[in-house]
């Protein structure tokens, strides 16, 4: 409500109200007035952020479930050694770097450099692919060394958490490839690269929790690098 209208006498206020709307009418330049996006961001970006909020809860629930079974077990095994930590550190590095290339891709797209943006995007997807390959190799090793009989809880948690994450990386690989190609072909806009970038950074972000909680918390460094 504007102070000017509030101050005038009611008799004079009436015509003014007819012209500008009543004194209690909401301000037209308010971001929440309607007819505009209150956060001044594209709806697609907003939608992706909401997905990320929800998906982070999914991952949180998985990690909490892991913590739950772990907390309830007095003798939780420390299954990893320095070798596995070295490998997962490498995987972390690959993911972090792919996030950097993604940032560069988005910047290029926003600057209108179509080709460069697509190249950075593909580089990011390749980073994802490298992550998947290393991770799959690690998985096959672990599966090989599993004991007979029911799966120990540690490995239940390991496969679930990293598997879910790997699923996201795989989806991200295809997502980035498709978006990169479509952007290169002129079908998609910079905003699409940006939205895909959000997804990719999120996958990276999740790993920042999976890595310490699954690997580092279950490592006995004195076991060295062997199996």
């Amino acid at each position, binding site marked *: 409500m504007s102070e000017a209208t509030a101050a005038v006498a009611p008799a004079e*206020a009436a015509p003014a109200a007819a012209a500008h709307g009543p004194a209690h009418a909401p301000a037209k330049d308010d971001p929440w007035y309607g007819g505009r996006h209150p956060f001044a961001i594209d709806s697609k970006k907003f939608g992706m952020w909401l997905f990320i909020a929800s*998906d982070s809860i999914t991952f949180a629930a998985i990690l909490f479930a892991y913590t739950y079974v772990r907390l309830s077990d007095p003798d939780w095994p420390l299954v990893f050694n320095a070798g596995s930590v070295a490998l997962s550190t490498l995987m972390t590095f690959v993911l972090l770097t792919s996030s950097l290339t993604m940032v560069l891709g988005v910047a290029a797209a926003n600057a209108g450099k179509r080709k460069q943006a697509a190249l950075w995007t593909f580089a990011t997807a390749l980073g994802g692919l490298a992550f998947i390959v290393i991770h799959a190799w690690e998985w096959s090793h672990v599966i090989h060394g599993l004991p007979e009989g*029911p799966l120990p809880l540690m490995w239940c948690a390991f496969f679930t958490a990293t598997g879910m994450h790997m699923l996201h990386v795989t989806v991200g690989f295809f997502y980035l490839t498709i978006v990169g190609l479509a952007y290169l072909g002129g079908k998609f806009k910079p905003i699409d690269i940006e939205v895909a970038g959000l997804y990719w950074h999120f996958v990276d972000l999740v790993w920042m929790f999976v890595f310490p909680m699954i690997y580092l918390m279950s490592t006995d460094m004195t076991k060295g690098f062997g199996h």
Partner: protein
Amino acid sequence: MSSEAAAEHAVHVHQAPTNPIWRYVFSTDHKVIGIQYWILALVSAFVGMGLSVWFRLHLLNQGHVAQLTDQLSLLVEGSADYNAIKAKIDALQTAWYHMEPSQYLGILTMHGTILVFMVLTTAPMGGFGNYFLPIQVGALDMAFPRLNMLSFWLTFLSFVTLMAAFFVPGGSPNAGWTGYPPLSAVPDSQGNGYQGPGGWGQDLWVLSIAIFCFASLVGAINFIVTTLDLRTKGMTLMRMPLTCWAWFVTAILALLSFAVLLVAGLLLLLDRNLGTSFYVPGDLFVSNKLLVDHKGGSPLLFQHLFWFFGHPEVYIAIVPGMGLASHLLSSFARKPVFGYRAMVYAIFGIGVLGFFVWGHHMFQSGMSPYVAVAFSVMTMVVGVPSAIKTFNWLGTIWGGNIRFQSPMLYALGFVSLFVTGGIGGIFLGQNAVDIYFHDTYFVVGHFHMIMGVAAIFGMFAGTVYWFPKVTGKMMNEPLSQAHFWCTFLGVNVIFIVMHLMGLEGHPRRYSGFAFEFLSSDYMVRMHTIVTHTAIFTASAQVLFLINLVYSLAAGKKAGDNPWESTSLEWATTSPPPFENFKDGVLPEVHHGPYEYSVPDAAKDYIMQHDPPEARPATAPAPH
């Protein structure tokens, strides 16, 4: 400022696709999708209801069997009386509606799952929300029309998957709609005599739920973005109808809670099929076989994850009904909603608090008693915003010029059932009291009262209220009123009697009458009342079907605004054109949503898009 202009949305008017497949089947039009959701829910509702009548008949039958068996024990074997009674028992045991215990549990599980997921979660949001949210906020469509189509078809896939569970080897799952492990987690624990490699029913059940989670998540994103980004000019948040607020809050709940259900289901699926043991405790023997040789996981973990979703889920079912009830009470009492802002805050309060109370479903589970106390207290606190809403509803109709048309009746029915059921909740929410009530018919009565029928009354209300808008025809008023009274009286009898049975200690989910007190005259009489009333009430639903078909074919023509309501859907034609508003020109909003009986105004209601002058300057400021 430039950034604002920036995101200002351009108005694109798309042409309606001409091919009927794209127009009516794989449509991206929110109106078509809304109708598709609604039909899915209607079909599911009838399937679910049919199942319930079936197992009610079985229960009544078992009651008689138990009583006759008691009589039999007093007679001399071989005597004429004995043989007569024996023959009666045999006849009852071979009746078509007789079930084996595991079959009973299977049907019960499917009944609950179908109704909770496919009806209570789809119709209020996916159905009415899809159709009316964009129109009420003044948009051409949802924010992401293609994702909208995706969420419907995923829901449909989820429905088909669930239905398939009836027909697979091993039959439908029987761990209840809550799917508690270990029963649900151990492949061959179904106990129904099936000898194959684990029942598929439970797998399909989990799969169906997982797909449903994904569909709901996509839908929730769409709803939230639409509400915040696509409001037309002048539709500030505090000018949105309470229905929109309700859908908005519901979408937030869905966004945050289905994510956790997804994990609960995922871990269950892994436990069943890939040899993990998150939910399978150590030292558990099934068919003389030790399942895990280590400490094992914990069934409690599932309960936590499930109810973390489960309690918000019950609000997902009811909150849209609350929004609609507020909308209708105001519209049909010709009065502004009493305490609009309080209503908005209360909806938010219920939504937020709904996340803090899930443990009240687990008081008896052996969880930490300290946590139980905290949950108990928080549960009592939810009563506060619920009471705010209830008193504001009463305030809204107080002294109003009430029009007792069928939408109003259903809305009043909603309020009544919500209060009755909610009071049961206050009993159950207290840790100490619930130790007695848990897993009795009292709980069954409570949640059917509130979720089973209050929420359904919300859907009836929505259907009669919006039918003219969607089809251009009015529903038949006498038929609607007859249906209302039959249903309202019927459900009250059924579920109040269930409360009473629960008070006497009748356990839920029993297919037979294992204990003597269950086959007492009192209990069997109660079962008789419930079953007979259930058959009556279920038959009354035919009135509703007839009404739908009849009105569609021969209903009175409806004008654009037959109820003289104020929100934007009444500003367009009935049915609305493809682009919602004439030529895709979005209306501009100048008024609040509930401007009824404004002093000195020309009419007794001011529509939201009426020009600013429609509201006399002498009238007091709106909320």
